């Protein structure tokens, strides 16, 4: 949000810095004095949580890389060496492995929030697109990282995913060989996956910086989806939202720690404690939970190439979401029909996740097909048409002002995040 910089260098040194590279001023304007809508609820705390996750993953990852050996004969044992012999290695490794799951949990909530409150709409299209770029990079990092412990699921996940590229007509097999660095998933594959797994998080870090930059130009969206009209609608980011984000982060860390310390293997798969064996295929090859919806979409389509296209399209469609939604109303709060379809969409995503974990037959296959159809219909049919046919609820004039009361249509009085009744005018 454009605003007058209130940073005052307090001594000679900071004045000297400020006149040459105003980096302290930038940080001050972006994270201290940055004007933020007053009504952000807890769904808005996941941006900070995600930044924290990224830092945790990079820090633990750097330490793990000091002890890990990217070689097919040693990778599996070197992870166990970290668990057994490295000082606090067990802790660092569990945090890293469970951190991936926590990262995806947070990013999915963050994305659903953006979807519900219309955070992808004008003028925040680029902000949304950069977010989708980060999501794609996260998926790449998670997949590459999952291969590194070189257990059975690592190996077979790598085999299944790289084989998807072989479905591309004419060039597919060549691309697969190029990805493998040989004629099967082998040492060359493991080496390059390690190299790329180390690279991608820093790319993510850079795109996150762009994401925050793109956020700070138009400013935060908010649960009402209307632009702040003045100072009564805003508070400085620090201390108001640092405190709120800090509290939410505390809750998130409690969940994170519960997994790390009490359920460290609950989100993983037993087969990955068996060393990779190209000659033995596991009974069920299942990805980690955060890829299950995509896996369900892949298997919902009977044709392999079409399945691959559907899976990638399910992600790619997010890039054009800002132009698929025809409604001018940002927040789902004032869109009665959209709310219903949105709840169904969340249900469809969860159902796809369930179906992706089952063998592709019977009820699970049916659920994955219905879920896939709804997933695409939501973006391609429902969102474009809804803006035309839906009558939005009456909206308040500003963030600080309540909805004008009308006798025939009771205003939508949603309790805010703190459980207090509807907002009252400032002053």
């Amino acid at each position, binding site marked *: 949000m454009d605003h007058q910089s209130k940073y005052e260098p307090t001594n000679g040194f900071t004045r000297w810095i400020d006149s040459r590279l105003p980096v302290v001023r930038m940080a001050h304007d972006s994270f201290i004095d940055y004007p933020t809508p007053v009504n952000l609820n807890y769904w808005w705390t996941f941006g900070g949580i995600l930044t924290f996750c990224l830092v945790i993953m990079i820090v633990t990852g750097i330490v793990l890389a000091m002890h890990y050996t990217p070689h097919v004969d040693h990778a599996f044992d070197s992870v166990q060496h970290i668990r057994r012999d490295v000082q606090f290695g067990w802790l660092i490794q569990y945090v890293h492995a469970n951190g991936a799951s926590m990262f995806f949990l947070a990013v999915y909530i963050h994305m659903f929030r953006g979807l519900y409150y219309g955070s992808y709409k004008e003028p925040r299209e680029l902000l949304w697109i950069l977010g989708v770029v980060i999501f794609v990079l996260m998926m790449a990092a998670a997949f590459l990282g999952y291969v590194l412990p070189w257990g059975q699921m690592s190996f077979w996940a790598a085999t299944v995913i790289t084989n998807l590229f072989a479905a591309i007509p004419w060039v597919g097999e060549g691309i697969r060989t190029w990805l493998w660095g040989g004629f099967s998933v082998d040492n060359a594959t493991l080496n390059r996956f390690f190299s790329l797994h180390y690279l991608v998080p820093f790319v993510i870090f850079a795109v996150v910086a762009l994401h925050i930059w793109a956020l700070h130009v138009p400013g935060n969206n908010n649960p009402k989806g209307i632009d702040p009209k003045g100072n009564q609608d805003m508070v400085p980011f620090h201390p108001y939202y640092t405190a709120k984000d800090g509290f939410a982060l505390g809750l998130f860390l409690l969940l994170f720690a519960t997994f790390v310390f009490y359920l460290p293997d609950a989100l993983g798969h037993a087969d990955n404690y*068996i060393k990779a064996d190209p000659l033995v295929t596991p009974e069920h090859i299942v990805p980690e939970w955060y890829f299950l919806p995509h896996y369900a979409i892949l298997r919902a389509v009977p044709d392999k190439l079409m399945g691959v296209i559907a899976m990638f399209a399910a992600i790619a469609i997010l890039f054009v979401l800002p132009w698929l939604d025809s409604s001018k109303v940002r927040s789902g709060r004032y869109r009665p029909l959209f709310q219903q379809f949105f709840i169904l969409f969340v249900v469809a995503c969860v159902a796809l996740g369930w179906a992706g974990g089952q063998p592709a037959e019977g009820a699970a296959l049916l659920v994955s097909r219905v879920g896939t159809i709804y997933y695409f219909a939501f973006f391609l049919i429902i969102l474009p048409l809804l803006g035309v046919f839906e009558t939005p609820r009456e909206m308040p004039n500003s963030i600080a002002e309540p909805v004008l009361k009308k006798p025939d249509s009771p205003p939508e009085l949603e309790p805010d995040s703190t459980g207090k009744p509807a907002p009252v005018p400032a002053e």
Partner: protein
Amino acid sequence: MRIAKLFLSILFVVGLTGASGPASPDVDLDVQLADGSTQKVHLTFGEKPLDKLTRDDVRAMLTISLGDQAAQLSSEERTRVEDEIVGHIQSSLRYKKSPDHQHWHFSGPLGTFDRMALQRGYQVYREVCASCHSMDLIAFRNLSDPGGPGFSEDEVKALAAQFTYEDGPDEFGDMFDRPGKPSDYFPNPYTNENQGRAANGGALPPDLSLITKARKYGPDYVYALMTGYDKPVPPLVEMQVGLYYNPYFSGRQIAMPNQLFPEMVEYADGTVATQEQMAKDVVEFLTWAGEPKMEARKAMAIPVLAYLFILTILMYMSYKRLWRNIDH
């Protein structure tokens, strides 16, 4: 009228995976007749569990379910339909049983390993399992690590010294034999995998270092497997040569015969070595081997969670205090 073709799915309605439960599930068959009509046949096996069913039971049930049409079946058709049903019962009897839940000393947020059980478990591994199963990730020194079996360093030295390791080369370039040291990893019973396969009819006994983590239901599974050999082979199951019936194993046919016989080890602490006792002890030991830092993990959990809990409360209070005069 002849029944021409039996096809479509045979649906087992309930609980196939827990197949040796109290009663056998019902079976719904769609039988297509020669004139193109479809006959629904409902087979009820009554109270008899799936793993007690015989071919005679299947025949009897088929006769009852088909009613009037039973007489119109040619003997070939009857055999074929019976085979179909038996085939499906057999395939459902390949689903492994879920192990019963056991209470372990290490269960729960405060669970720790029982030192004496770990020591007895090591004895069972050494005297029974180790002749076929390696444990490559465990060194003798681990036996005296904190959170482990709690052998003293002298005991560990003695345990390691029972084995001979090839070392070298020495200054003349020759390999030499020496007694084991605490830093040595447990000796592997085979010089290579092929030897292990050859010695065991083609099935390589898996390394046990991570066995309780590498199987679903880990400790409960290993315990059920080690004590699961007393179940009679179901009449409809055709055993492969050289395999043993064990309902907890994937496919229910396992190359390892029963290993734990009462009193086969003599515990130094006087514990009676029943099959259940030995199985419990060795599972305790294997669970420790799978995660030697489990006690460190659980010990750190409480201070970390308490710290985070207090921090979160303080964050909440400061958040509330900061926002108390803000209308939002």
